């Protein structure tokens, strides 16, 4: 059979298994059907629920505005799939082409999509993590339990870690009128994601809203009573805090353990894949039948120095899943590269935060619109003379423009005249990331085109 015939036969009668029944898995499945895949489709998920949306968990659900089980993902179309929910995948047989499940069953496939995502990083000390009152927030069950406890009005909530999740939880607690302490190892909230300059604004926001924010500090121990209920927390500066709820918000861990020994290049940093979402094997050779999408994937992005980026972004899960699904049922030149410009949003303390590009690459920044003092601004991040990212606080409608600047490697600092430019926005200042990890090579490519099919990479010389 010719390649075309094989491809057609696979579209009609092939077997696709998707491991991970959350946002990426669902959107991939829908795309497969949308693009005419009529073969068998199996969805495997370790949670018993139908795919649901996570962003509301740390916002509307924790505010008590919406029950935790009321965030199902809207379906774009009927799927006609076999659903295996509530059973985790435990292994992958690459040569035998089977996924092993926790209940002992084996599911054969012709092509596999890995979309197992991440889970919350638990508190380091297991015994302390088991105390009644210690929570993480990742699943809808987590949100339901935490919401129940917040509704019972604890005396004080301790949040360990002031990244986006920790800050959103702190915001929800304050909106409910609860006393909140946030303990952050870095010098400010969000500092790992947005740098110290913007982190300082986040710190002001927290304090203005009555958060007891403590930076440059770690939690050394959580302590419970004889009944196993959390009673207090010990901090690295020697203070002891009376708390009955602690939320561990120390980031996520990638769900790759089930792939151990499978021969796929999977590890703590995710599953490495090429720009077409095809997983690498442990030799670094691209597989042709194993695809990856969503939080668990690490793929190289030409626009950002071909760095392997792993992004825990909602939009990444959707777009990467769509590209992966398309490529799973396409061959050769019909396959698309995954060229999404990273973007994420957050809502906290009444402010809508939106980001595009890779702020952590930016060594300098300038406030191009609005003002830090008003907590309403757009900031552009620069790296080696080009725009690499932009973040808006309550100014999200401008971000598309900055995304185009990033895509076209526009020069930084930005010198053009524009609306609402204040004197502070006229010069670039260091962005103050605590530990900048700078890639080694300069701007060599730009993106053009809008729709997925005419997205193109063009090599351009670095601006000196």
């Amino acid at each position, binding site marked *: 059979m010719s390649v075309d015939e094989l491809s057609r036969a696979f579209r009609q009668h092939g077997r696709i298994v998707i491991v991970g029944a959350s946002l990426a898995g669902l959107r991939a499945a829908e795309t497969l059907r949308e693009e005419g895949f009529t073969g068998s489709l199996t969805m495997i998920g370790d949670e018993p629920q139908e795919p649901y949306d996570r962003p509301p968990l740390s916002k509307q659900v924790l505010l008590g505005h919406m029950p935790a089980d009321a965030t199902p993902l809207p379906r774009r179309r009927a799927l006609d799939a076999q659903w295996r929910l509530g059973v985790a995948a435990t292994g992958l047989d690459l040569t035998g082409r089977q996924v092993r499940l926790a209940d002992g069953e084996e599911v054969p496939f012709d092509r596999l999509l890995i979309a197992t995502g991440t889970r919350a990083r638990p508190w380091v000390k297991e015994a302390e993590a088991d105390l009644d009152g210690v929570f993480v927030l990742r699943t809808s069950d987590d949100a339901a339990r935490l919401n129940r406890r917040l509704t019972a009005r604890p005396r004080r909530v301790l949040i360990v870690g002031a990244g986006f999740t920790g800050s959103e939880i702190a915001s929800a607690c304050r909106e409910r009128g609860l006393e909140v302490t946030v303990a952050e190892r870095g010098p400010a909230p969000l500092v790992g994601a947005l740098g110290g300059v913007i982190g300082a604004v986040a710190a002001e926001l927290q304090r203005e809203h009555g958060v007891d924010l403590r930076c440059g500090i770690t939690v050394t121990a959580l302590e419970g009573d004889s009944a196993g209920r959390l009673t207090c927390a010990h901090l690295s500066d020697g203070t002891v805090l009376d708390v009955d709820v602690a939320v561990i918000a120390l980031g996520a861990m990638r769900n790759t353990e089930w792939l151990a020994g499978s021969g796929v290049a999977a590890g703590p940093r995710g599953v490495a894949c090429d720009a077409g979402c095809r997983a690498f094997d442990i030799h670094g050779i691209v597989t042709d039948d194993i695809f990856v999408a969503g939080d668990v994937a690490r793929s190289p992005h030409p626009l950002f120095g071909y760095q392997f980026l792993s992004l825990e972004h909602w939009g990444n899960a959707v777009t990467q899943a769509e590209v992966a699904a398309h490529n799973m049922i396409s061959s050769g030149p019909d396959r698309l590269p995954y060229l999404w410009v990273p973007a994420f949003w957050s809502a906290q303390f*009444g402010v809508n935060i939106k980001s595009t590009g890779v702020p952590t690459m930016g060594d300098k920044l300038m406030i*191009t*619109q*609005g003002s830090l003092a*008003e907590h*309403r601004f*757009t900031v552009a991040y620069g790296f080696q003379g080009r725009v690499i990212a932009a973040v808006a606080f309550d*100014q999200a*409608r*401008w*971000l*598309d*423009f900055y995304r*185009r600047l990033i895509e076209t490697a526009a020069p930084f600092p930005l010198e*053009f*005249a*524009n*609306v*609402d430019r204040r004197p502070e926005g006229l010069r670039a200042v260091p962005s103050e990331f605590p530990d900048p990890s700078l890639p080694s090579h300069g701007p060599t490519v730009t993106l053009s085109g*809008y*729709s997925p099919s005419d997205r193109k990479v063009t090599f351009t010389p670095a601006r000196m």
Partner: protein
Amino acid sequence: MTSGTLLRQITDYANRADPYPLYTELRRTPVARQDDGVYTVSTYWEILSLLHDPRLSSDLRNRVPQPGDALPLEEDPSLPVSFIRLDPPEHDRLRRLATRPFGPPKCPRRVFNMRGELTRMVSDLIDGFQGRNQVDIVDDFAYPFPVAVICKLLGVPRQDEARFHVWAEAIVAALDPNPAEGPAERQRASQQARSEMGRYLAELIEEHRHVPGDDMFSALATDHGPDGQMTPVELIATGVLLLIAGHETTVNLISNGMLTLLRHPDVLKRLRDDPGLAVPLVEELLRYEPPVQLLPQRTALDDIDIAGTVIPKGAPIWLVLASGNRDPKRFPDAERFEPERRDNQHLGFGSGIHYCFGAPLARLEAQLALTELARRLDNPQLVNDPPPYRRNPVLRGPRHLSVAFDDLLA
């Protein structure tokens, strides 16, 4: 044909009924300099990117005077400017203040809660067709309905409608950028109308301040938020904007919608059988026959390099939304009316910071109105095709829309 004459043709009243072939022509040059120095932008992606470009100003004070520029620079300094013509940070502050009594986060259910009342208004107007076999959809329905809604929402006495209708007509006429038809005269009439409307609103708002009701003017006059309050002058400017924008565009959305449905009887029948179709159908209408055809008041704050053309600093820019909406590079089968079109991110409400303030209300009004018209008019027929149009090329819609029908259903 030069593009200069092309734009003249688009604004020419003779082509009001069907400007779309001219837009197709216009899109051959996505960004085109016209004879009078105006830059027209007619393709989807270019319009969208300029709507998000902070180098574009909505404030006419940033415009470098062009020979033959259709829009006058001379604004009467005693007349306040509404936020549609302002840039951040003033724009943002005023729009935030105006949003507080209208939508989320403070009033998330304002529009939703009007559903019952809107349904009643629609039913009452259609009940009024009783005993007739022909109506003018514009005069008998598409105009009175949004006017009643905006009066209710803002807290304007319904009986004053006749007064502000005259002012609104004069103000809207001045938005007509056609230089051939006495712009200076229209401008004077518009300023006169603005002053009179301003005095009227000042009194009205003062009444609401003393005896507040559950309406937006009362809330704007009495509510204190994190941004404080609007000054009396700002309140009047906002009032003029909301009153006019709230009743001039929805008329066109509903009448363009009914016209399109009558030209697509299969779709009309489907809507009758499945009211749920109204949601995607109204989106497609906003793409296919947008009530706001173009935005003629943007100005470049810097040289802008786009689609191979540099728009110089200070130049006036017209964003031709209706043309972008039919750009085949963005919408497959763009000239076709497809009520269930997917991926329909049209420019019908604009985009960016000036995105239509009343969009949620306009959507609801059009959905309810078209569903009920489709359901209750038995065998509706278009009497004139094309119908006579209103003068304005910016806010385009039929002046009259005569529809004959066999019977009025319950």
